[in-house]
C-alpha cells in the first residue's frame, strides 16, 4: 500500500494513517486492517483504536518497539486489499425529534434557513455509515450528514447531555450512549439503549459496530414514551 504513514503516538502506541482525509476508501482500509489484526492477532498488541482514516495500535513495550511493529505490519498491509469485510448490517434507530428531546432543532433550522420539519426530513433521509466507535463506550461516529445540515458544534459544550440524545457536529451525527458532557447540537433522542453492559460477557455490548449502515426513523413523543418504558 502506498498511502500509508506510520507515526509513533507514545512509547507504547503507533498510529497508522491511511491518508489525511475522511474518505470511504480510507475508512475501508481502516476496517480491513482492524479485521486482519483481529483474525490474525500479533503477539504483544494490546489494543486497537480505529478512527476515520487511522488506526492507533497499542502494544506491550517489553515485547515490541515501533520499528518491530512496523516490520510486522508491512506484510499485513500488503494483503489489505484482499481482506473481505462482512456485509454491512442495516440498523434503524427511532428518534423523537425536537422539544425537550432535541433542544437545538429550532436553532439548527434557523441557521440553515429551514423549517424544523425540513431538518428532520433531511436528517432522517440519509443512510449513514458507522466510521468507528470512540469517545465513550458505544459512541458511533456516523457520516456523512447531508451537506445542507453541516453545522459547527456548540461554542460552549453542555455539562450534561442525556443518554440517547442524537446530535450533529460538522458533517457527523451520533447518538450519546450515556449522560456525558457534550458539544454536539441535539436534534432529538432515541429510546434505544446504545450500550448494554449487562447482557453477558459474550454478546455484543454495543448496538452499533464499525461498518454498520444506520437510518433514523422519526417517532412521536407518545411512541418515545412507550418505547422508553419498555
Amino acid at each position, binding site marked *: 500500500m502506498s498511502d500509508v504513514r506510520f*507515526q*509513533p*503516538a*507514545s*512509547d*507504547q*502506541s503507533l*498510529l497508522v494513517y491511511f491518508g*489525511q*482525509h*475522511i474518505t470511504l476508501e480510507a475508512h475501508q482500509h481502516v476496517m480491513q486492517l*482492524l479485521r486482519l489484526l*483481529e483474525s490474525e492477532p500479533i503477539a504483544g498488541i*494490546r*489494543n*486497537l*483504536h*480505529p*478512527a*476515520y*482514516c*487511522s*488506526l*492507533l495500535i*497499542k502494544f506491550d*513495550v*517489553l515485547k515490541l*518497539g*515501533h520499528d518491530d511493529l512496523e516490520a510486522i505490519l508491512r506484510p499485513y498491509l500488503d494483503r489489505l486489499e484482499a481482506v473481505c469485510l462482512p456485509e454491512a448490517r442495516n440498523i434503524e434507530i427511532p428518534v423523537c425529534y425536537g422539544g425537550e428531546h432535541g433542544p437545538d432543532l429550532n436553532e439548527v433550522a434557523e441557521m440553515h434557513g429551514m423549517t424544523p420539519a425540513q431538518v428532520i426530513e433531511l436528517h432522517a433521509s440519509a443512510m449513514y455509515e458507522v466510521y*468507528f*466507535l*470512540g*469517545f*465513550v*463506550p*458505544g*459512541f458511533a*461516529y456516523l457520516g456523512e450528514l447531508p451537506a445542507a445540515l*453541516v453545522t*459547527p458544534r456548540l461554542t460552549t459544550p453542555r455539562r450534561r447531555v442525556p443518554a440517547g440524545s442524537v446530535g450533529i*457536529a*460538522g*458533517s457527523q451525527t451520533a447518538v450519546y*450512549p*450515556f449522560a*456525558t458532557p457534550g458539544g454536539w447540537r441535539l436534534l432529538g433522542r432515541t429510546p434505544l439503549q446504545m*450500550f448494554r*453492559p449487562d447482557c453477558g*460477557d459474550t454478546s*455484543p*455490548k*454495543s448496538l452499533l*459496530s*464499525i461498518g454498520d449502515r444506520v437510518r433514523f426513523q422519526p417517532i412521536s413523543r407518545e411512541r418515545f414514551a412507550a418505547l422508553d418504558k419498555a
Partner: protein
Amino acid sequence: MTEIHVKLPGLLTTVQDLGREGFGPIGVSPSGAADPVSLRLGNRLLGNPDTSAALEMTLLGGTFLFPQGAVVALTGSDFGATLDGVPVELWTSVEVSPGQILRVRDTRSGARCYLCVQGGIAVQPFLGSASTHILSGLGGFEGRALRKGDVLNNGPTEGSFRKRKLAEQARERLAPRQILRVTPGPQALWFPESSRQLFYGSRYRVTEESNRMGLRLVGPHLQGPPIPTSFAGEMVTEGVSLGAIQVPHGGLPIILFVEQQTTGGYRKIANVISADLPSLGQLRPRDEIRFELVGWEACCASRRRCWPPRS
C-alpha cells in the same frame, strides 16, 4: 469469602484492577488503577495474582469494618491509616482480626492509596475486568464509587498470613516524579517552536477539575498551531493514547488518563512515557509539574527499571 463493610466511603473510592485492554473498537477505554505499580505491589505482598482487584482511594480514604477479619495491605500514598486506632504501616501485609475497623484518613503525600485484601475484591467482571469506569457507570461495584453502607466481598483465600514488607530502597524508587518524561506527540511539529519551548520551559499546575479521565493543567497558554488538515474546520479525529497531552483551543494542556476517551480531535504536543504514568496517578490538585523531552530509546529501558520485580 469474607465481608468488608463500608462505614465511610471517603472522597472517591472505587474498585480497580489492571483494567480492560482490547475494547478500543467499541469505544471502551481500559480504566484500571491510576497507579498500577502500587496496586501490583499490594497484591504481591498478599500473595494475590497481580490482576486482583483492590480499592482505590482518592485524597481522603474510607473507614472499613471487617466482620470476619482479613489480611490487607495499604500501598501508594500515605493516608495516615489506623487499625482500631493503632497506626498501620504502608507497604506491609497486615492481619485484621474479626470486628476490627480500618480507618484511612487523608493524604500526606500523593493522590491515591490502595487497600488490597487477600483474595482480592470480588465483583462481577465487566469485559473481563473488575475496574470501575465512572463516567459510563460500568464495571466495579455497581459501576460507581462506594457509598456508606455498601458491603463488599473478598475472594477465596488460603487463609494464611505471612508478614511481607517492601524493601526500603524499592519504596524510594517508587517516589512519584514531578518532572514527567515525555516523547513528542503525533502533532508536536504542528506547534510553533516558541510554543514547544514554552511547554518544556514552564511549570504547569494540576487543577481541581482533574479526574481519572484527564488531568487539566494551568500555566502558560500554548499558541494554537495552524491546522494542515481540515474537516469542518477541525482536525480529523484519531485514536488517542494513554498519557497524551492534548492542547484544546484555549491553549491549556490536558493529560489523558486511565478513563480517557478512546479517540479525540485535539492536537497532541507530547505524551507521558509509560514508566511515568503511575506518577500521574499520584498527582494532586495544585501540584506543580514540568515536562522533559526524552528519546524513544530511553522509554523502554526506564520501563524495565521501574517495573516491580517479583519478590
